[in-house]
């Protein structure tokens, strides 16, 4: 029997092992998507495929889908005892793994004293996977690129040459794609080596007992957090842009004792554009959002998922069926966090935040550079986060996704793009007692002298982030061209030389009534240029003398009183 002290020592060691795995992967990666944006996950699994520990990097979409993929797909199909040392598996099946073909999940068994003891897995976003480039245009999965059913990438240490050749022949930038596959393999092998050192040091045969104990304790802790909530059903519904027509995401959170069920019944049907979400991905963002709001200190592993059930009607936008197109599934998937947090606001308002821009804005450019070589480049950008009960929302910060933006200098070094500005977007944060985070504005052009293809994956251009408990919505996003054109925010178009595209990213929603915001905070926002004079008066009822930059207390009081009588000017 392992006592609590030894358990904690070994558990801390397991976390350091997966951090070592992720470190090796990141440092040997070939792409900015992995290195700078951190679009990856890494974790260790027991013999049955239960995820025990994850590295501190990563995005919920990858971590939690990878957890399901290994347990429900890899382990049943390739039980660890059926594998050999030096084997490594790969798949990008959207339904079984992380929801679109771009994400490669690579899984390696670890052998110790002749017996399989664990799996190491990582999921990384490949910069290209063939087919139509990333975007929502495809009408079916078959247009979206190369599908790799679960198979061996390495057999007993020998690379599966045929598979490598197929990948090489299907993708636009094979060096980067293949380079990152090797980086994932390097990470898994480093993890395996470190795990074996740990088993030797603690004289353990495997990690089965540690896994059982940790998952059990995690499950109990999450159950305790759920039990602390009042029983009942809490609902919220939001409308988001969709591809051609708005879509509904409806959620009902049912709390019964120490179990929690989220039902997305009432959400829109799947569509024939590549924004459909597989259930695995819906589950991933649901569990993540609930963990962040209800149990932020508890580790994220298989045990945490047990008390939480997630369902969505088959054929709905959140549980689509094959061969629905899914390339830009995050456009919808990131939004499940929004109604969930709003529904929870009814019972734990201090643990949630208002809606925010939520969906990452993904910009993909491809074409021919000035030397006639193909280029393809993708980067992610974030709008504003929603405000909380005691603080303003964060500006230009990704949530719920955990990935990072890429420096302009890195973008321009890697791709023939010129960024003309990238700055905060004033007045985009929703007004409230606490203000929503600001979005950002980006303006860019292509400098090859030739046209390029720009794939847009942008949301909240029609439906802004709503405020919470009296807070106002953030500004919606906009996509426009310097000559007045308006590209479709979820499609692609040709960006001509000399033409500029301007992206205005949405802001986050406010929290609490704007008239309750401390006028001194409004003044500070005006001084810094986060809020304009006009908006200070219009949205907050605060009158500022532009000459002295001071608050006109009397005028403010009068204005706020009048607005109070109007009732809901907002």
């Amino acid at each position, binding site marked *: 029997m392992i006592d609590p002290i030894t358990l904690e020592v070994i558990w801390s060691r397991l976390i350091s092992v997966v951090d*070592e795995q992720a470190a090796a992967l990141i440092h040997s990666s070939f792409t900015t998507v992995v290195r700078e944006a951190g679009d990856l996950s890494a974790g260790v699994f027991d013999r049955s495929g239960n995820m025990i520990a994850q590295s501190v990097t990563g995005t919920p979409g990858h971590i939690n889908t990878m957890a399901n993929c290994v347990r429900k797909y890899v382990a049943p199909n390739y039980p660890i005892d059926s594998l050999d040392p030096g084997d490594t598996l790969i798949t990008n099946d959207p339904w079984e793994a992380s929801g679109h073909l771009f994400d490669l999940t690579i899984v390696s068994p670890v052998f110790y004293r002749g017996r399989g003891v664990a799996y190491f897995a990582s999921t990384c976003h490949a910069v290209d996977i063939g087919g139509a480039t990333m975007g929502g245009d495809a009408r079916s999965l078959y247009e979206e690129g190369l599908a790799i059913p679960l198979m061996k990438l390495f057999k007993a240490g020998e690379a599966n040459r045929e598979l490598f050749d197929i990948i090489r022949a299907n993708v636009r930038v094979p060096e980067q794609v293949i380079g990152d596959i090797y980086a994932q393999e390097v990470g898994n092998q480093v993890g395996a080596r470190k795990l074996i050192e740990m088993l030797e040091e603690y004289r353990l045969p495997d990690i089965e007992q540690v896994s059982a104990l940790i998952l059990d304790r995690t499950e109990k802790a999450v159950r305790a957090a759920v039990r602390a909530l009042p029983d009942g059903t809490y609902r919220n519904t939001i409308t988001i842009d969709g591809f051609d027509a708005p879509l509904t995401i409806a959620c009902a959170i049912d709390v019964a004792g120490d179990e929690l069920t989220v039902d997305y019944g009432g959400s829109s049907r799947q569509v024939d554009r590549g924004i459909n979400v597989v259930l695995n991905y819906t589950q991933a963002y649901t569990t993540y959002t609930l963990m962040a709001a209800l149990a932020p200190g508890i580790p994220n592993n298989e045990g945490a998922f047990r008390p939480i059930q997630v369902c969505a009607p088959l054929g709905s936008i959140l549980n689509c069926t094959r061969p629905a197109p899914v390339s830009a599934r995050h456009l919808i998937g990131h939004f499940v966090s929004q109604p969930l947090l709003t529904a929870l606001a009814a019972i734990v308002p201090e643990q949630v935040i208002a809606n925010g821009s939520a969906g990452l804005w993904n910009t993909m450019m491809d074409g021919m550079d000035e030397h006639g070589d193909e280029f393809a480049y993708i980067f992610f950008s974030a709008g504003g986060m929603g405000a909380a009960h005691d603080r303003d929302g964060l500006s230009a910060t990704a949530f719920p996704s955990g990935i990072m933006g890429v420096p302009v200098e890195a973008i321009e070094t890697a791709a023939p793009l010129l960024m003309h500005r990238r700055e*905060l977007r004033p007045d985009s944060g929703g007004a409230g007692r606490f203000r929503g985070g600001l979005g950002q504005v980006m303006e860019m052009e292509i400098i090859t002298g030739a046209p390029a293809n720009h794939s847009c994956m942008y949301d909240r251009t029609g439906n802004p982030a709503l405020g919470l408990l009296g807070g106002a919505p953030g500004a919606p996003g906009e996509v426009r061209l310097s000559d007045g054109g308006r590209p479709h925010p979820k499609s692609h178009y040709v960006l001509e030389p000399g033409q500029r595209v301007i992206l205005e990213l949405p802001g986050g929603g406010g929290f609490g009534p704007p008239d309750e915001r401390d006028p001194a905070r409004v003044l500070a926002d005006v001084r810094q240029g986060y809020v304009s004079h006009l908006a200070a008066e219009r949205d907050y009822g605060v009158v500022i003398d532009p000459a002295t930059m001071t608050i006109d207390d009397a005028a403010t009081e009068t204005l706020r009183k009048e607005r109070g009588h109007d009732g809901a000017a907002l």
Partner: protein
Amino acid sequence: MSMSAPPTLLAIDIGGTFTDLVALDIASGRIAVEKLLTTYPDPSAAVLEGLASLLEKSRLAPGSIRYVVHGTTLITNTLIERTGAKTALLATEGFRDAVEIGNEGRYDMYDLALKKPPPLAERRLRFDVPERMLADGTVWTPLNEARTRQICAVLRADEIEAVAICFLHAYTNPAHELAALAIVSEELPEVSTSVSHQVAPGMREYPRASTTIANAYVQPITERYLRRVETGLKGCGIDAPLNIMLSSGGTTTVAAARAFPVRLVESGPAGGALAGLYWGRLLGEQDVLAFDMGGTTAKAALTRDGELSISHQSEVAHVHRFKRGSGLPLMVPMIEMIEIGAGGGSIAHLNPLGLPAVGPRSAGSAPGPASYGIGGTEPTVTDADLLLGYLNPDYFAGGGIKLDAAAARQSFADLAAALDLPLERMAWGVHQLVNENMAAAARVHAAERGLEIRRYCLVATGGAGPAHACGVAKGLGVRRVIIPPLAGVGSAFGFLTAPIAFDFTRSYVAKLSALNLTELNEILADLEREGRGIVEAAGVPPSDISVRLHIDMRYVGQGYEVRVPFPMETLTARHIRQMQSAFENEYRAFYGQLADGLPIEAVNWRVLISGPAPDIASAPPAASLAVNDAPVAFRPVRFEPEKAPQETPVYRREQLGEAWAAAGPLIIEEAASTTIVAPGWSAQMAAGGCLLLTREQES
């Protein structure tokens, strides 16, 4: 500095709590030490007071002091407390918010109430300047000089004290930054200026701008402070040049320190790492892990190929002290340090899984561990060490603090009851957990760099380091531990071992197959000339200066580089092949395999110019006061949770003779710390007054 006559060397280290002074008389090997509380707000007061006292006590003549080296936390504190100058930023039009947008990420995925560090230059003081360079250094939009002058007028009216200039891609072509600098210097001659291509030459506008602003922000206060120290030293009759300790482990002139004060952050810990390296080398060790454990934090640094690793990516002034990503990014050369919240005052508690955890919360020195009896009631690492018998309640801090065992027992009662464990088992667990936390941090750090930690020798310092050294070493698979003398003033002593050095970096990105050698040779010659200027200004004769080259290289498309040492000579075609194989060797060592067939490119060219370190090795060892090699006492000590405590001999360090050796378990006490030699380890006195602990091979 003259290296020929054996002079007296003086080191001054201003830490957050204490100011330490160490004088080393090379001829006699005599070391004089002074420790006093750091004075606020003017830390130079303690320096001058301590110096007067040191000179008087040691009867040293001020004139005999030929070399002074000084490190300070002033810069770090100014950044943490945000008490620097009113600072403005001039940025490329459209990019003044780069420092606020940051990396758009969250450093803690599960914290919905996350806070980010606000930029040191607020938004209204960040200005757009029309100009634009492309990534390859060609001009897209020329600098708008008229607009730059207009901005200067606004800055003047707003009484700005410091200006940072950071333009996009200035690291490939600094022309616009230089032109803007000329205008600002002309219009606002009283204002401190910092330009990004000089302060932090490297790609990535967010960390570069952040570093440049930080440099500007601390410049005026550093300027005033250094002037006071210089004047004060002269007032004490010392006319040796003042050298300033850098975070990179080298020292530099006051002039260079004034220009790049941000390179002084964390110079104290750098001194500690240097001291570790010095003692390791003295005992013939090649791979050294310098490990310092105090009251609140543990810090560690590793050597690579016998040198401390330098990083150009770090952070300062964290919102959450131990959360990576929560600080202001800095791109300056810095000895790579691991810092975790593990010290004698770290508090044990239950984590949300109901498992025991230690730190990062610390009882510090107030209210302190429960056993201090000055208000603390929570169980800490020091309390655990006392319950295990590791610490002597009557000889902690040389008897200065009387430890209360009953209070320590009391503090552990709840935790032990919650886990249904005996008190001693609980205390043992806390000791073991904190050791594992420190070992884990060192292991991940080593993994990120492809180093084999088991080969290392651990040099343990700090009040709590020697008591935990064996435990940490075991967790790392390390077999040799050094407990050096002078642990109480380790950083200051380390300063004395630092060479006068400065390094310069230029970005020059090109595939190896397409290097323009003429241009490159010119760049390298420029960098060397600049560096020699600084090092010669510190009094180093040109013949004593060594010049090294490091090239940061990668496969085309990768974003992190591998640092490759390369001979500094005029580059010709034959060097290109050598660069490739040097890169491949480093890459293979790091990642295990090559990405065969992909083109390789060079990114950054770093030229390191250094003089010799002061020759302190020629100092004869101070005579031993050995009077008693036998134990001064025995006490029961717990080394294994399942077994009863073991009667363990206790020695006094200052009484041990040069030839002393004994097998563990045993304890060696001194005023500054207590060394625990666990069963399976043996201890002996070694060169320079070091204790050397070795672990026998397990059967």
